[in-house]
């Protein structure tokens, strides 16, 4: 069965066949034929106000659901504006498909109007990319793009389509199979290695589960819980793995790394076995590598063979789908329990006691002031209202770290943030994507005053779609994280970090037709947040916080995890004065 139709319609058919119900984009000259099809097509197209935000919104959609997010831009500047979002998705393994228009194939290479070498530019920004110059390749390529984006280690795939392909008429035949002979998806872990892993787990005295974004991407949260229960090992989750284990789980310590908790970092440093699940030993987690987990053997499970052994050579490498590996590993541990060993049991009990002692000694600091709003106070209040059940889309910077420290997540896919790339301006458009994906959910966009101003144009998208996003600006009048580094490492010479003339939030929101407010007194905060949450529509809450707070604990760059600084240096009396 085949039907005669244009390439533009064929693209829409393929997208619909992939289950795309919503996409984010910005039209332009060469994508006109596609937008003509979208005019009366079932796929909902969300018009953003800048292409970069189309990519971020597609990421928000994908991160909130696990489905492939779709964004679309025209040739030249449209395509180049997508780049940050593509790299962001690449770094955090987020499945998105980007459709870009390209000038007519005969004009390629002629420096035509709005021509850019999108295929060349996006090669290192994507898991794979395509340039479609022939209509008969289009349908096949679109389905390949979705397959590549969603399977294995997920990632962004870009399809650049020339205008003549959009316009050409051809016979559409639904694609039934795709053949990528060089694309290997590793699913089953090696049975022998899984057996060795089980043995190491049973023999270890101080095991620690180090779980990351792979658990979220691999939809393996339930399997992780099973595994944790069977091993009864303490667990940390990375920035990308927040929610992989519920924040109130008895075995959960918290986040490790540069701004991780004291207990998590000490546990990393003292463990004799690291069970690394869907993590990549990022430098923000490990600190100085030579001093990272120096006593630990490592079991490393990841679907990407290139991650296993990239940074740290594991004793037991397991390449496979994390969900399947965890099921097998848990089954093995249940079926072949360890011989009772009094010494090991005592060591495990002592390990747990030690971890509890670390947790009690230095929980995250949540200072509350009577005169000013402390940023930690703000995050604690948001956490109270969320109860671990709201989606929190965060921008990048200090607020991101405080939110990661202090907000709980009962499930995966509630914490949406730009982890690997650290793209400012991510939070608000990602919240838009997440809200479209999960319209029933309470969605917070937590931004700093810097990142918020990068994404201000999207207030218009929020207003025009009536998205009930609660935009919380943690406003310290500075680019807080850069300011923190200047304070701590550059003699407090504050260079280009002061953000003056922040707009009046109430008037700004009113200009877009929704409610907004600024609060600066700690006693107003709880009620203001409650009012924002109660508001059926969007709400912009500008929260003025103490300007010079630093995020602690902090592992200074080049430091070991257990050399973290727990708070601001105490004033020291100078002898003789």
């Amino acid at each position, binding site marked *: 069965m085949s039907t005669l139709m244009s390439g533009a319609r064929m693209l829409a058919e393929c997208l619909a066949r992939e289950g795309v119900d919503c996409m984010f984009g910005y039209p332009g000259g060469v994508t006109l034929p596609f937008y003509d099809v979208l005019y009366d097509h079932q796929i909902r197209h969300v018009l953003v106000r800048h292409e970069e935000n189309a990519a971020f919104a597609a990421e928000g959609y994908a991160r909130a659901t696990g489905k492939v997010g779709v964004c679309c831009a025209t040739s030249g500047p449209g395509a180049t504006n997508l780049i940050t979002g593509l790299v962001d998705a690449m770094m955090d393994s987020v499945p998105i498909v980007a459709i870009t228009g390209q000038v007519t194939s005969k004009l390629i290479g002629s420096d035509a109007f709005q021509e850019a070498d999108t295929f060349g530019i996006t090669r290192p920004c994507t898991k794979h990319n395509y340039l479609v110059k022939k209509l008969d390749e289009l349908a096949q390529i679109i389905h390949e793009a979705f397959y590549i984006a969603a399977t294995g280690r997920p990632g962004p795939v870009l399809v650049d389509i020339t205008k003549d392909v959009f316009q050409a008429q051809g016979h559409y035949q639904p694609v039934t199979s795709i053949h990528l002979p060089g694309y290997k998806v590793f699913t089953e872990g090696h049975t022998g290695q899984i057996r060795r892993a089980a043995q190491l787990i049973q023999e270890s005295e101080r095991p620690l589960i180090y779980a990351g974004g792979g658990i979220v991407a691999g939809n393996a949260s339930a399997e992780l819980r099973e595994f944790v229960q069977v091993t009864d090992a303490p667990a940390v989750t990375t920035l990308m793995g927040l929610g992989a284990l519920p924040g109130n789980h008895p075995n959960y310590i918290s986040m490790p790394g540069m701004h991780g908790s004291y207990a998590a970092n000490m546990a990393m440093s003292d463990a004799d076995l690291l069970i690394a699940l869907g993590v990549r030993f990022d430098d923000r987690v490990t600190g100085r590598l030579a001093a990272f987990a120096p006593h630990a053997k490592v079991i490393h499970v990841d679907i990407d063979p*290139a991650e296993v052994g990239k940074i740290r050579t594991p004793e037991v490498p397991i390449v496979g789908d994390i969900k399947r590996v965890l099921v097998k590993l848990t089954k093995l541990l249940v079926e072949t329990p360890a011989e009772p060993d009094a010494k090991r049991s005592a060591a495990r009990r002592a390990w747990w006691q030690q971890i509890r002692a670390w947790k009690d000694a230095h929980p995250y600091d949540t200072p509350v002031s009577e005169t000013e709003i402390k940023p930690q106070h703000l995050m604690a209040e948001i956490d109270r209202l969320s109860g671990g059940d709201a989606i929190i889309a965060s921008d990048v910077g200090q607020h991101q770290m405080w939110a990661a420290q202090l907000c709980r997540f009962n499930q995966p896919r509630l914490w949406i943030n730009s982890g690997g790339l650290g793209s400012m301006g991510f939070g608000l458009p990602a919240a838009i994507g997440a809200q479209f994906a999960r319209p029933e959910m309470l969605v917070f966009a937590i931004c700093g005053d810097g990142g918020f101003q990068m994404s201000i144009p999207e207030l218009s998208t929020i207003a025009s779609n009536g998205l009930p996003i609660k935009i919380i600006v943690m406003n310290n009048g500075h680019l807080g994280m850069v300011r923190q580094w200047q304070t701590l490492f550059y003699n407090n010479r504050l260079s280009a970090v002061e953000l003056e003339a922040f707009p009046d939030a109430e008037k700004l929101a009113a200009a877009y037709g929704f409610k907004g407010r600024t609060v600066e007194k700690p006693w107003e905060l709880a009620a203001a947040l409650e009012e924002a949450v109660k508001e059926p529509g969007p709400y912009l809450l500008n929260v003025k916080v103490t300007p010079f707070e630093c995020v602690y604990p902090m592992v200074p760059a080049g430091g070991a995890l257990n050399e973290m600084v727990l708070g601001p240096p105490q004033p020291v009396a100078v002898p003789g004065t």
Partner: protein
Amino acid sequence: MLQIISLVLENKPGALMRVTGLLSQRGYNIESLTVARTLDPELSRMTIVVDVDSLQRAQVIKQMNKLINVLQANDLSEGPTVIRELVLLRIRTAQESRTAVLKEAEIFGGRVVDSGVEGFAIEVTGDPEKLGEFVDVMAAYGEVEVTRSGALAIALDSKKLRLQPPVSTVGQGHPTPLHK
């Protein structure tokens, strides 16, 4: 140290760019690179020599294998391998040195492909290191211009090309293998 990588890749637009881009992106220096079609016109074989820290060698191969268009990437630095390179060399030499130049070329197994009043054009194939010596020797007799093909390598033990089977497309994120 130098690592010799043999790649089999799909002969698709941009495939070469993906390989070279990956190498520069990950900070590996390319010493030489050759590429041409295989017996199957849809596939190309590439021999790449990269300068890479020995600890990173496995990582380079893994990254190569992640490229969708790469069907196989092998490290030929160890194991039985034949490595050959071609040099084309033009030498301007004085009349009295002509016989000596021909003698030296013969020692290196070279073949004169062109001869003129001013000198010769000589082709030599061989081990890349040996070719370096040949060029040095020739330079002693006069002004030389050299072009080298870059190393070509083939493993002496056969490595089976393992290809992935087709998958059926039944909608987003849930592809199922056609043949199990």
